[in-house]
């Protein structure tokens, strides 16, 4: 290995197999949890007349998002990546949420009728 190669490796943190194994376990547990949760009626939250939040999809998406976060941070090394990578990932999610959120804003407010 030349000097450059050694330096190259030191700058790239190598995530250990143990970490990967722990994450694998966490992901499988999350999967089991989310399947289990779908078999129960978790109820709802009546925020306002005509505006109700059902907990089942919220829980399912929350578990999915947790699993995604673990994959992104550890399997995809983002925890050990430069700030630019983190910023890039964040901006991707942000734009994804803008697409969905602002489009749904139209659909959800159609029922509100005229002023």
């Amino acid at each position, binding site marked *: 290995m030349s000097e450059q190669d050694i330096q190259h490796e030191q700058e790239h943190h190598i995530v250990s197999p143990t970490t990967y194994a722990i994450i*694998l376990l966490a992901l499988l547990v999350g*999967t089991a949890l989310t399947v289990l949760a779908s078999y129960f009626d978790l109820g709802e939250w009546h925020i306002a007349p005509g505006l109700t939040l059902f907990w089942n999809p919220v829980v399912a998406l929350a578990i999915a998002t947790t*699993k995604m976060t673990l994959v992104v941070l550890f399997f995809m090394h983002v925890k050990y990546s430069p700030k630019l990578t983190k910023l890039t990932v964040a901006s991707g999610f942000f734009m994804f949420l803008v697409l969905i959120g602002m489009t749904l804003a139209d659909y959800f407010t159609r029922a509100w009728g005229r002023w």
Partner: protein
Amino acid sequence: MSDSTAIANGAAAEAHHEHPPYQRHHFETVDQQFDATNFAMWLFLLTEIMFFGGLFTAYLIMRNWYYPAFVAASHQLQIKWGTANTAVLIASSFTMAMGVWSAEVRRRKSLLIYLGLTLLFGLTFLGIKYIEWHEKWEKHHIPGIHYSVQSFVNPQSDPEVWNEYHDKPLQADMAQKTEEYFFLYFAMTGMHALHMVIGVGILVFMIFRAKAGAYTTGHVTFVENFGLYWHFVDIIWIYLFALLYLISRH
């Protein structure tokens, strides 16, 4: 390539630093090359997020409008296959990450094993997908000319699903909306499967190259960047599973 001839001509300027053979000549250092290509891969994944985003948007709107149809239709998907596929893909992400680790610590045999396992898991996923889709074909739940709303208008005609869920029969117009669910199901899992197939193809290529020792001499970029792609496809499935299979099973 014009690059190499340029270097030959500008040899005097280049002679002051040597570089590994896999460093392209428009980069000044190996690190710059690794950083740049890694960043490029992330940007490509951003385009993929937005690409799938359109499908997720359509799905969320339709689900909100036709919730009973979506519930009934999702009961047609067997949770055992969905869960199995999720576990398979998560395992494949693990083996892929281990593959990247093997390349980083320069263990060729280990890399080959993990790439092979990842390929195996990928093919298993596709196999299970085929089983599921075939079942949909047999039950006339593929949108199009042969689509049938029988299972939803008269749930008792479908004993497997009836025994588990005892769904109420849907009105004709709501039952027709189950076709929307299945369209989105096939569009989203189909697009996902297409990405899996491409991934599997690249994996096969990588296994050949790994055998030749291409990734265990310090040049891990290709494996690392492919790993990012593979994990991304896994993440898409994590959400597809939550949204398509787990709408409501109570």
